[in-house]
C-alpha cells in the first residue's frame, strides 16, 4: 500500500497523464536534511494534472520542506523533481509558489499592488518598465481575491487573511500551470478561506494543477481530490477515497489523533 503507484486515472473524467514523466510535478527519492536527522526521507510524489492535492501530516512532518525541495528553495541531499517532464530550471515560468504567510516581514515598505506585480517579475525582467497592461493585469488578479480596493495600501496594514489573499493574487498574476501553496488557509478568517477555495477550484476548472500543504484535516475531503500523507517518509498517496483512511491517518499522526477523531474525519467525509 505504502509503495503503491499513485492512481493517475480517475473515473470522473479528469485528464489522465500519458506517462508519469508528464506529471505537472514528479518528485523522486527526495531527501532533505537540516541537521543530522533527515527532515524528509526518500519521498516520491506524483501530482495528478488538473487536480487538487493536499499534502498533510503532523507538525514537523516535512510538508513545507517537501514543497521547498521541489522548488529548489532548499537543497536536497538526494532526489530530484521534474515539472511537466522537464527539469525545474527550465520550467519556472509554469510554476507559481505561495509561501507561508508568516515567512515574510509584512512591515516591508511596499504596497499591495507592488506585491501583485512581483508575480510578473519574470516577464518584466531587470529593467523593462511596468506598463499600464501590467498594472491592469495585477489589478485584475487582486480583484479576483477581492483585494483590488486595497491596491495602494501598505501591506502591513492588512489583516492576516487579506495578506494571504494578496499572496494568492501574486501567484495568479504569474498565470502558471502548477500552483504550489504552503498552508494557504493557516490563520485566515472564514471569508478569506472561502475566497481562496473558490479561486483554487476555478484554477482546477481551468485545467491547472494545485498542490497545497494543508493542516486542517476536517476540510480535506471537502476541498481536495487527492491527498499525500507524509511524516518524514511517505505514508500514502492517492485519491481522498483511497488514501485518506483511518489506517493511514493513524500511521501518519500516531498518537496525536484520538481514534474517535480519526473515525469522525474519515466517516464524516462521505
Amino acid at each position: 500500500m505504502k509503495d503503491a503507484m499513485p492512481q493517475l486515472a480517475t473515473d470522473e473524467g479528469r485528464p489522465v497523464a500519458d506517462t508519469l514523466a508528464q506529471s505537472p510535478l514528479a518528485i523522486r527519492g527526495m531527501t532533505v536534511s537540516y541537521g543530522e536527522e533527515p527532515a524528509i526521507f526518500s519521498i516520491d510524489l506524483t501530482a495528478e494534472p488538473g487536480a487538487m492535492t493536499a499534502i498533510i501530516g503532523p507538525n514537523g512532518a516535512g510538508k513545507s520542506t517537501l514543497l521547498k525541495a521541489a522548488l529548489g528553495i532548499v537543497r536536497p541531499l538526494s532526489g530530484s523533481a521534474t515539472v511537466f517532464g522537464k527539469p525545474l530550471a527550465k520550467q519556472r515560468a509554469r510554476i507559481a509558489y505561495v509561501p507561508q504567510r508568516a515567512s515574510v516581514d509584512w512591515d516591508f515598505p511596499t504596497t499591495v499592488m507592488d506585491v501583485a506585480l512581483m508575480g510578473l517579475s519574470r516577464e518584466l525582467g531587470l529593467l523593462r518598465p511596468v506598463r499600464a497592461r501590467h498594472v491592469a493585469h495585477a489589478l485584475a488578479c487582486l480583484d479576483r481575491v477581492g483585494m483590488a480596493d486595497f491596491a495602494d495600501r501598505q501591506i502591513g496594514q492588512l489583516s492576516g487573511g487579506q495578506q494571504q489573499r494578496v499572496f494568492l493574487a501574486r501567484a495568479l498574476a504569474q498565470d502558471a500551470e502548477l500552483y504550489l501553496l504552503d498552508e494557504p488557509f493557516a490563520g485566515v478568517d472564514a471569508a478569506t478561506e472561502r475566497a481562496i477555495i473558490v479561486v483554487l477550484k476555478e484554477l482546477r476548472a481551468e485545467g491547472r494543477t494545485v498542490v497545497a500543504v494543508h493542516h486542517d484535516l476536517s476540510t480535506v475531503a471537502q476541498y481536495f481530490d487527492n491527498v499525500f500523507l507524509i511524516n518524514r517518509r511517505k505514508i500514502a498517496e492517492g485519491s481522498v477515497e483511497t488514501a485518506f483512511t483511518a489506517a493511514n491517518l493513524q500511521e501518519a499522526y500516531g498518537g496525536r489523533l484520538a481514534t474517535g477523531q480519526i473515525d469522525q474525519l474519515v466517516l464524516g467525509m462521505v
Partner: protein
Amino acid sequence: MIGAEFVALSLPPLLIGTFAAIACALPGNFLVLRRQALIGDAISHVVLPGIVVAFLVTGRIGTWPMMLGAAGAALIAVGLIELIRRLGRVDAGAAMGVTFTAMFAGGVLLLEQSDTSSVHLDVQHALYGNLESLIWLEAAGWESLLDPVALASLPPELTRITVTLVAVVAFIRLLWRPLKISTFDEGFARAQGVPATILGLALVVTAASAAVAAFDAVGSIIVIAMFICPPAAARLMTERLETQIWWSVAFACLSAVLGYVLAGYGPLWLGGQNSVSAAGMIATVSGMILAATALFAPHRKAS
C-alpha cells in the same frame, strides 16, 4: 578670496564625506530591511586587518590592493561566522559579534606592530579617518574645477569614492527588482529562479566595497553610522521602498554636510578654540536625524 579657500579646503572633504555617506547608505537600506544591519558594522571592522595585510604585502596604500585585502578579509569573516555558528552552536548575532571584534582587534595589533609611519595608516585614522586633511592644494578657486592640471591633484580618495559610488548606484539600479523581491520574500524569489544566495553575497560585497572606499577617507565610525542611520530614519518617513531610498540619500547628504560644517565651526560658535572631528560629528548628526524621525516621522510603528 573666500571662494578659493572653500574650493581648496572644504569642497573636497565635503564631497568625499557626502559621497561616502551615500555609498554606504544605499546598500544599507537593504541590509537594514534584511535585518543584516550588523553585517555592515561587521564589514567596517573586519576590513581593517585586510587593509593592513594588503599594505604589508604591497608596501603602499593603493585602491586595488586595499579592495582585495578587504574583500578577502570579508570572505574570511563570513566563513568564520558560519563556522562559529555551526561548531559553537551559538546564534548568528553572537557569532558575528565574536568574529568582527576579534578581527578588528587583530587588525589593530597588526597595525601597531608594522611600520606604517610612511603612510597615513594608524589606529586613530582607522576610526576617524582624515577627512579634514583631504585638501586640494592646487585649487585657486572655482575655475580650477575646469583646469585639468589642477584637477589632477585632487585627493585620490575623491576619485576612489566617486568611482565606488557610481558602482554602488549601478548595482542597485540594475538589480533593483531581484534585490527588492528577494529582500521581501526570499522563498518566492528563489522559486522564480532568482539566485538569492549569490545576490545576497553581491549585496554584502557591494557594501564592503563602499565600506573600504569610505573607510580610507572617513574611518569606520562614519561607515557604521551611514549603513544604519540614514536607512533606518528613511524607513520611518515612508511606506515605499523607492521613496525610502531617496530619503536615505537625503539624510546621508544632510548628515555629511551639516556634520562637516558643525565640526568645523560649531565649537567656534560656542566660544571654543578648536574644531572637532568631522567624522565623529557627521555620525553624530546622522544619529540625531534618526532620533528625530523616531520621535516625529509619519510612519513610526505603533508598538
